[in-house]
Every structure is written in C-alpha cells, then in structure tokens.
C-alpha cells in the first residue's frame, strides 16, 4: 500500500491508474502544473481547476484511488506577472472544493525576478488562508540556487509554519538545506533528471526518514507513474524494515497531508463510471 503525493494524472492514461492501483496506490495528490504550453487566458486555468477538482477525482475513484489536488499558476507561466495575478485571483473560489489541500506546486523555474514576485503572491495567499504549501524547486543547474532563494522567501512569511510546507524535488545537494530549516522534503523519482529509486533510498539512509516522502511526479514527460513501488522494492532489497518502507511511502505523506483536514487514504471501493456526464 502506498500514497503517491505528487502525480499529474490529467496527463496520464487509464492504464496508468490500473497499474498504480494494482501496485497498491490508495491515494494521490495532484499539484497544478504547466501543460507543456502556455495557456492563452486565465479562463484556461479556470477550466483546468475544474478538471482538478471535479472530473479527475471521479476518474481516479473508478480505480479505488482517492484524488486530492493543489492549486496555483506554475512558475513556468509566471514570467508575465499581470497574467499570473489574474490566475491567482481565481483560486479562492476553488479553495472550498473538498479535495483541495493547499497551494502548489509553486516555486521558481529559471529563478527570475518575475517568478519570485509570483511566488511571493502565492505565499501571501497561503498565509492569509492558513493553507498547506507544496513547492516545486527548479530543474538541474537551477535547483540549488532556486532552492536557497525559495527558502529565504518563505522565511519572509512568518505565519507560514515550515512544518506545513513541503519542498519538493530535493536531491543530494539540497535535502540538508531543506531539512535543517524544519521543512518537509519530497524526492521525485525520475528516470533521468531527478532521483532514481536507488539514490532516493541513499538520501533516506543519509538524512533520515522523519520529514521526507517519495513521489513519481508522473506527467506528460519522461516519467514513471509506478516509481514509488519501485523504490519500495529497492528499500526491501537493502533489507530495510517493512515499518520504514511503510513510513516513507504511506505514513509520512499521510501525516503531512492530514494537516489540511481534507486528506484521506481510507480504502475506497472503485466506483462505476458516471454515464450521465
């Protein structure tokens, strides 16, 4: 049994839901992200937020998987601050939807001034509404600098408790920075550009298992929606106790996400498709 706390199911097929359910996935959380192209209007985000809060939970339920989500405009679309602020203004009306856990995945992409301005606008929204925050850290050569800038930015919002903020996509050069400041951290299991299951388990062995989880971040790119069970296999291969496997792939995400008051990983009987829609 496991939770995948970061996966973009709107980009995945029904076969992926089948494979995840068979591998033991009982709950997922889906952060708002970049579609692979820039939306042409805030209305495009309105429709996307409806997909995340209305249709995707129904799709997941057909496979017995509980679906939760996070809302934002992704940093890859934050270079136009006027546009981004129009999208952020749409978010409050969706916060009452029962599967919305908080704001995410916000953060930085190329570490630009405009991206930072929009990151701070999202942090203000989370602070004002006392919401959990899921943070994307930049890719590859931009990750270390971006992570440090993000941690500094969050500290400028004293109402945001680091224990309610997860910094995602950490690797060996950023995990300690995140954990030392009291934040949670997520490791993304990617074939090429983030952590392999082997390296993720190395990081747990090096930095401990208290405030850490693993996710697939499966999306429309090169990714693996059943990466988390592969990491479970890697932990068992090394002789880790089953209790530790369960902690980092179920107990930890459950503990962090339950702070929202809306997260559930209770067993869900697969539902029939709604033929009226």
């Amino acid at each position, binding site marked *: 049994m496991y939770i995948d706390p970061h996966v973009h199911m709107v980009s995945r097929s029904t076969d992926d839901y089948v494979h995840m359910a068979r591998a033991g996935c009982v709950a997922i959380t889906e952060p708002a992200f*970049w579609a692979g192209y820039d939306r042409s209007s805030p209305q495009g985000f309105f429709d996307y937020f409806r997909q995340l809060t209305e249709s995707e939970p129904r799709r997941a339920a057909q496979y017995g998987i509980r679906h939760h989500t996070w809302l934002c405009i992704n940093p890859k679309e934050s270079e136009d601050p006027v546009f981004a602020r129009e999208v952020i203004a749409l978010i409050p009306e969706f916060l009452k939807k029962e599967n919305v856990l908080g704001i995410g995945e916000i953060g930085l992409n*190329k570490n630009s*001034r405009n991206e930072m301005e929009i990151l701070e606008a999202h942090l203000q929204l989370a602070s004002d509404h006392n919401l959990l925050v899921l943070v994307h850290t930049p*890719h590859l050569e931009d990750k270390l600098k971006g992570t440090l800038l993000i941690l500094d930015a969050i500290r400028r919002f004293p109402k945001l408790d680091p224990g309610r903020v997860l910094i995602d996509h950490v690797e060996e050069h950023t995990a300690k920075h995140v954990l030392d400041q009291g934040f949670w951290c997520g490791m993304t299991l990617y074939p090429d550009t983030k952590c392999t299951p082997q390296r993720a388990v190395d990081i747990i062995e090096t930095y401990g298992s208290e405030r850490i989880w693993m996710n697939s971040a499966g999306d429309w790119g090169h990714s693996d929606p059943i990466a988390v069970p592969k990491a479970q296999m890697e932990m068992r291969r*090394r002789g880790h106790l089953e209790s530790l496997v369960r902690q980092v792939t179920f107990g930890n995400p459950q503990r962090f996400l339950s702070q929202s008051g809306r997260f559930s990983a209770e067993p869900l009987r697969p539902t029939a498709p709604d033929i009226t829609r």
Partner: protein
Amino acid sequence: MTRAQVVDAYFMEHRARLLDVAAFLDRIDRAGPGVDDFRMNAYRNAIALLLDGKPERTRRILEHFSDPSTTPIPAAHVKGATGAHDPIGKVH
C-alpha cells in the same frame, strides 16, 4: 548492508553504467573533431570528481553542475534547463 553486500548487489548494473559513459565519450569522438560546449566541459570535470578520493561525490557533482550565482536573474527567456551551468550565460 555490508561493503561486500553492496558490491554484490550493485556491481553488475554499475559496470553497465560505466560502459555507457565510456560509449558516450567514444560516440562523441567518432562524430569528428570539434570543441566541447559548456555541458561537456562540466561533464569531463565531473568525472575527475569521481576519482579524487573524497566523500559525498553525488552532492559535489550536483553542486559542480549548478549555477553558483545567488540573486534572481532579470528575466527568464527560456523555460528549460540544460543540465550544466553556462558560465557565459547564453542560455537564459
């Protein structure tokens, strides 16, 4: 796991990955003469870090590939990342 158990478990897959690195460099050689760009300069320097006998090779290689600056750039003109810091800054 003991040191011997780690080698038993992982030697074969990492032997294969080492050969992949060698084959990649051979492939570049076969492609003909030219000058390495900033990515391959960083890659070749990272290989040296593997052999310096110091610990935390993964962290140090990731830091080696990273942008060392500390302030936001004026504007983002691309969305993607190249995998290595461009010291001339042409890619932003």
